[in-house]
C-alpha cells in the first residue's frame, strides 16, 4: 500500500512531464531532448522564488509556467521552425530536432552549472508528515500530487472541450488535413510546444518541493518521460498518464523491494516489453 501511494505520487510528477513531452512530440513533431532541462530550470525557479521572495512553490507555478511557455515558444519559433521548414521528410526532421535539442540540453546544463554549480539543492516546504491509511507521507508530496491532478484535469478539459484544444488534437492526428480545414498548423505547433514546456515547468516546480535536485539531472527525467510517452502511445495524453503511474509504481516497488540502484533497470524492463509487444503504445492502434 505504501508502495502504491508513493508510486502514484512519483508517477503523478512523471505524468505531467510526459504529457508535456507528448504534446511537443505528438503535435509539434519535435522530439525535445532538452525537456528535462526545462524541468530543472523550473526547480531552480521555484527554489529562487521561495528563498528570495518566500513565494509558495505551488503558487509559484503561476510565474514559472508562463515564463516557460514564453521561453519554449521562442525556442520553437527561432530554433526549431527553420528545421521543420527545411526538412524534406519526417525522418530528417527527427534527426535534426534530436541533434538540435541535444545542443539545447547541453547549453542549458552549461548555463545552470555556471549559475548554480554542480551541487544538490533542496528546501523545506510543507515537510511535516501526514498520515494516510496508517503510514506517514510528506505533506508536500501529497500537495504536489493534488496540484498535478488539477493541472492534468485542466489540460484534459482544454484539449477535449474547447475549440483550440480540438484544433491541437487535429494537428496531432494529421497536420496536412488540419491545414486543409483552416487550422493554422504552424501556430498550433508552436502553441503545443510552448504548452508542453509550461506543463513540464509546472511539474518541475512541484517536484522541487520534495525532491533534491541538481543542475545535471535533467537527462534522466527526459529519458523517463520519453519512455513513458512511447509506452502510452505518442501523442496520447491519457496513455501517458497511465504509463506514468505504472512507471512510478514499478520504480518505487523495485527501489523498496529489491534495490534503489536498480530503478532504471526497472524502467528499461518495462520499455523493452513495450517495444517487443506493443510498439504502438499501450493504447495505441496499429498504424498501416
Amino acid at each position: 500500500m505504501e508502495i502504491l501511494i508513493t508510486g502514484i505520487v512519483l508517477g503523478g510528477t512523471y505524468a505531467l512531464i510526459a504529457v508535456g513531452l507528448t504534446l511537443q512530440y505528438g503535435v509539434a513533431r519535435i522530439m525535445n531532448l532538452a525537456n528535462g532541462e526545462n524541468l530543472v530550470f523550473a526547480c531552480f525557479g521555484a527554489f529562487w522564488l521561495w528563498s528570495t521572495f518566500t513565494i509558495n512553490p505551488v503558487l509559484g507555478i503561476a510565474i514559472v509556467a508562463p515564463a516557460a511557455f514564453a521561453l519554449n515558444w521562442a525556442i520553437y519559433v527561432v530554433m526549431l521552425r527553420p528545421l521543420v521548414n527545411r526538412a524534406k521528410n519526417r525522418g530528417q526532421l527527427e534527426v535534426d530536432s534530436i541533434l538540435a535539442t541535444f545542443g539545447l540540453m547541453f547549453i542549458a546544463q552549461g548555463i545552470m552549472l555556471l549559475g548554480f554549480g554542480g551541487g544538490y539543492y533542496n528546501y523545506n516546504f510543507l515537510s511535516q508528515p501526514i498520515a494516510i491509511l496508517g503510514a506517514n507521507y510528506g505533506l508536500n508530496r501529497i500537495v504536489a500530487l493534488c496540484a498535478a491532478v488539477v493541472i492534468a484535469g485542466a489540460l484534459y478539459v482544454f484539449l477535449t472541450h474547447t475549440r483550440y484544444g480540438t484544433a491541437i488534437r487535429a494537428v496531432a492526428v494529421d497536420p496536412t488535413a488540419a491545414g486543409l480545414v483552416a487550422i493554422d498548423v504552424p501556430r498550433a505547433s508552436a502553441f503545443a510546444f510552448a504548452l508542453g514546456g509550461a506543463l513540464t515547468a509546472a511539474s518541475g516546480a512541484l517536484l522541487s518541493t520534495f525532491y533534491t535536485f541538481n543542475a545535471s539531472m535533467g537527462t534522466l527525467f527526459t529519458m523517463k518521460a520519453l519512455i513513458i510517452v512511447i509506452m502510452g502511445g505518442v501523442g496520447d495524453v491519457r496513455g501517458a498518464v497511465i504509463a506514468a503511474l505504472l512507471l512510478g509504481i514499478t520504480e518505487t516497488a523495485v527501489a523498496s523491494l529489491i534495490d534503489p540502484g536498480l530503478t532504471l533497470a526497472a524502467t528499461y524492463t518495462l520499455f523493452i516489453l513495450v517495444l517487443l509487444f506493443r510498439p504502438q503504445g499501450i493504447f495505441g492502434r496499429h498504424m498501416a
Partner: protein
Amino acid sequence: MTPLLATITRREAGIAVIGAVMLAAAATLPLFDTGFYLSLALNIAMYVVLCTAWTLFSGPTHYISLASAAFFGIGTYSVALGIETLPFPLLVTIGFVASAVLAGLVGIATLRLSGVYFVIFTLGLAELVRQVVTWAQTNFTRGVGLYVFTDFTEAHIYWMLLGLAAVVYVTGWLVNRSRLGFALRIIGNDETVARHVGINTAMAKVALFMISGGFIGIVGAFLAPRFAYVEPPSAFNPMISFQVVIMALLGGTGRLWAPLLGVIPFTILFDQISANFPNHTSLVIGIAFMSVVYLLPRGVVGLIEDMRRMKRKFRIVWTDDAALGKDPAE
C-alpha cells in the same frame, strides 16, 4: 562503381598507401614525446576509432546511436574483471564479443522500429548497464572498484589503438564492397524498396550494429590499463557517447575517413577547454551540436565538397563563356 569491383583499383591502392604512411608516421610519435603530446594523441586515436566505428553503422543507416559508452564500459570491465586470471588478448576478445552481443540484443529490440525509439533506448543504455554492474558488484563481490595493473605504458596503448584503427578502416572498406554494404546503401535510400528487393533490413542493421559495437568494446578494453582503477562511473561515462556523436557528425558521416576531420580539431579544442575552463565543457558541446545542425549539416566533408562543386561550377561557366568548351571535370 569502385565498391563493387572484385579487384582493388589504383585509387584505392593509392589511398591505402597514403593511409599506411600516415599511420606509420603517427606511430613514431612516442619516440619524440611521452608526456602531453602522447596523451593528446592517445585521446585522438581513441576517438578516431570510436567515431569511425560509430560511423560504420550510423553513416549509412542514419540511426543516431548513443550506446558507445555502454560498449566502451563493457570492454573496460571485461579487462578489469579478468586481468588477474586471464591473458589480455583473451579479455579483449571477451570485451568484443560481449559488446557485440549487447549490440545485437539492443538491435533486435529497437532496429525494427523508427529511429526515435533507437535513440531513446541507447540514451539510457550506459546508465542501465552501469546500474546493473554496480548492483551486481555490491551484492556479489567485495567492492565496486577494480585495480588494473599491467605493464602497458601509454605508448603501448597508443600503438594498439593505431593498429585497431587500421583494422576498423579495412573492415569498413570490406563492408562497403560487400553485399551487406550494398544492402545498407539501399536501406539508407529507401527502406521499403530494400525490403521489396529481398533485403532482410532488420538483420542487416543488427549485423552492422554488432560489428560497430564490438569495435567500441575493444577500445574500452584497450583503455582499461590506462584507468588503472576502474569504477562504474568512470567506465560508463555517458559523455563518451555524446562526444563520439558530435565529433563524427562534425567530420561528416558520408565517408569512412570523414570523422577524422572532426575528431582531431574537437579533441584538441576540448582538451584545452577542459584544462582551462572546466565548467564550460557542457556549453562547448552544446554549441558544437548547434553548429553541426545549423551550420554544417553534412560535416566538414560536406563543406569541402560544396566548395569544390562551387569552384567547378565557376570554372564551367568560365570555360563555356570562353570557348563553349567541354566540362573540364570530365
